[in-house]
């Protein structure tokens, strides 16, 4: 790897203040950015929350998931269903259901009318699905590439299911046209800034929580299981629960990220959660640095910013560019941008 440490060396005196500087910039963003740009930034930060989960499972657990879109989607659809119901006049059902020939609300939609149920669902459903799914797979000692392939199949199955059940999911178009959330008008003054700050707060809490988790004995055992699962097992630990808990936490973060993203984007659809978006999520983290929490956030922000800039000008070009970036990072920068920043120390 080329020595690029000169690029970062001169920022060193700033290092202790860097987190506070970034936090101050983050807090001040609503006063400096246009509503459109603020909304973009908030979306990317929601994706950053998901990216943090990938650092936990992929970087430190060695568990490559090509199915994080599923959990992103579970959180996104949970909040979307709630908003669809909240906006409805009494006794009516969403318009897309009428067009599909339904006359009544499906039973499983009904509890989402409750804000409390919805919030609980956003936190619990992705976590539970992640725990049960990974528990079933890891219990059988399936790992590595096989696990990645199974998660990809899960993403494919999930997006196919949503597309095929048009009458209850909105199908390919997904769910959109939201007007309010928990009593706040989405177009109202201050809602954009409020949701942005909420996203920033969740991102910070997730970041700090994971830093602690990775420094704890749990983090040690996760890395130990990644590098020598047999040694861990024959030191008397069962590696499976550590991997399952990590995967469930990553699924929860993906679900929270998906719910926040849906609030900012005003839409959730299969195009955001299927196989290709799930791979893109891994690419953000590969580029930012899969061992680094800060790197993953930077990766999610930069890649999505670049995607936005490039695909608005040359829509065809983006996938090629992302592919090239991915190959570049995997071959030359296995620790991503974070590895570059730490080049001096290494």
């Amino acid at each position, binding site marked *: 790897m080329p020595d690029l440490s000169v690029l970062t060396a001169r920022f060193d005196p700033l290092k202790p203040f860097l987190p506070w500087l970034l936090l101050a910039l983050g807090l001040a963003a609503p006063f400096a950015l246009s509503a459109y740009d603020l909304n973009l930034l908030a979306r990317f930060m929601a994706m950053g929350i998901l990216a943090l989960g990938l650092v936990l499972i992929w970087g430190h657990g060695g568990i490559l998931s090509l199915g994080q879109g599923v959990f992103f989607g579970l959180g996104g659809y949970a909040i979307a269903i709630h908003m669809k119901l909240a906006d409805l006049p009494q006794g009516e059902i969403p318009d897309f259901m009428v067009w599909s020939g339904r006359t009544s609300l499906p039973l499983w939609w009904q509890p989402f009318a409750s804000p409390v149920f919805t919030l609980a669902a956003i936190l619990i459903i992705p976590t539970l699905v992640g725990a049960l799914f990974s528990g079933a797979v890891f219990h059988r000692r399936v790992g590595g590439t096989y696990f990645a392939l199974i998660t990809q199949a899960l993403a494919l199955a999930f997006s196919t299911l949503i597309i095929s059940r048009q009458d209850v999911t909105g199908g390919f178009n997904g769910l959109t046209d939201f007007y309010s959330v928990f009593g706040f008008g989405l177009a109202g003054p201050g809602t954009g800034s409020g949701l942005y700050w909420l996203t920033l707060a969740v991102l910070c809490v997730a970041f700090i929580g994971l830093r*602690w*988790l990775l*420094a*704890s*004995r*749990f983090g*040690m*055992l996760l*890395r*130990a299981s*990644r*590098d*020598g699962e*047999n*040694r*861990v*097992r*024959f*030191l*008397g*630990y*069962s590696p499976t*629960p*550590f991997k399952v*808990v990590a995967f469930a936490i990553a699924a929860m973060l993906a679900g929270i990220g998906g719910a926040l993203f849906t609030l900012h984007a005003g839409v959730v659809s299969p195009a955001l959660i299927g196989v290709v978006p799930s791979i893109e999520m891994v690419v953000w983290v590969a580029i930012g640095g899969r061992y680094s929490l800060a790197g993953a956030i930077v990766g999610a922000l930069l890649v999505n910013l670049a995607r936005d800039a490039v695909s608005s000008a040359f829509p065809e070009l983006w996938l090629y560019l992302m592919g090239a970036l991915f190959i570049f990072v995997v071959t030359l920068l296995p620790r991503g941008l974070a590895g570059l920043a730490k080049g001096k120390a290494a």
Partner: protein
Amino acid sequence: MSGSAVSDLLLSVDGVTIDYSGFKALDNFSMTLNRGETRVVIGPNGAGKSTLCDTIIGRVRPSAGRVLFKGEEIQRLAEQKIVARGICRKFQAPGVLPTLSVRDNLALAARRDRRWWKSFGIGIPADERLAVEEALDTVGLAHRAQVEAGTLAHGEKQWLEIAMVMATGAELLLLDEPTAGMGPAETSRTAELILGLGDSRTVLVIDHDMSFVEQLAAPVTVMHQGKFLKQGSIADVRADPEVAAVYLGHAK
């Protein structure tokens, strides 16, 4: 089993067969180990020595026979439960955890409560720290405590893994080729280390470096083609024509 031997008997491998679809890695194999004993198992390649370790720690499951530890059948227990009963193994290729520091490797080994929901603390509790520092001193790695275990020299990795196995507090230590890849000086140190374990531990050593086996001066069990062949002092075994034949490769 005779009643009088029970108090001394720690491990009993009783008629164990490991069948890899027709190939018997262990074939009706039996042996016993008493508390505090050090025993060396030798045999040509493919004799079933490592399979014996695999069987005792639950990595492979016998198709016939029993493994008794302190009188209790363990051949169907989950691996981590076997460790909890007091058996720990050093693998042939050093099995240290490469991205953790030497100290953290030992801290994980010294940990008694290994349940996941008790793992969210940061740092090493005082009583475990003591065991960790002791283990570091025993194998002479105190000055290397902070480095990543993956950066250690090969011999140091072997010692670290021996220290980890010791730090688990296990009563029965299985050391699978602890001197593999070591020079004569390192081999002697390893022998001292094992002899220094004293009477409190029962040790089963697998090796085929005869000078090392002589330094251990322990009873030897010879295996051949998954079967028990001979047992006795190193001198007895050396003088045995059957053992010589096996090692020279023209056994019946």
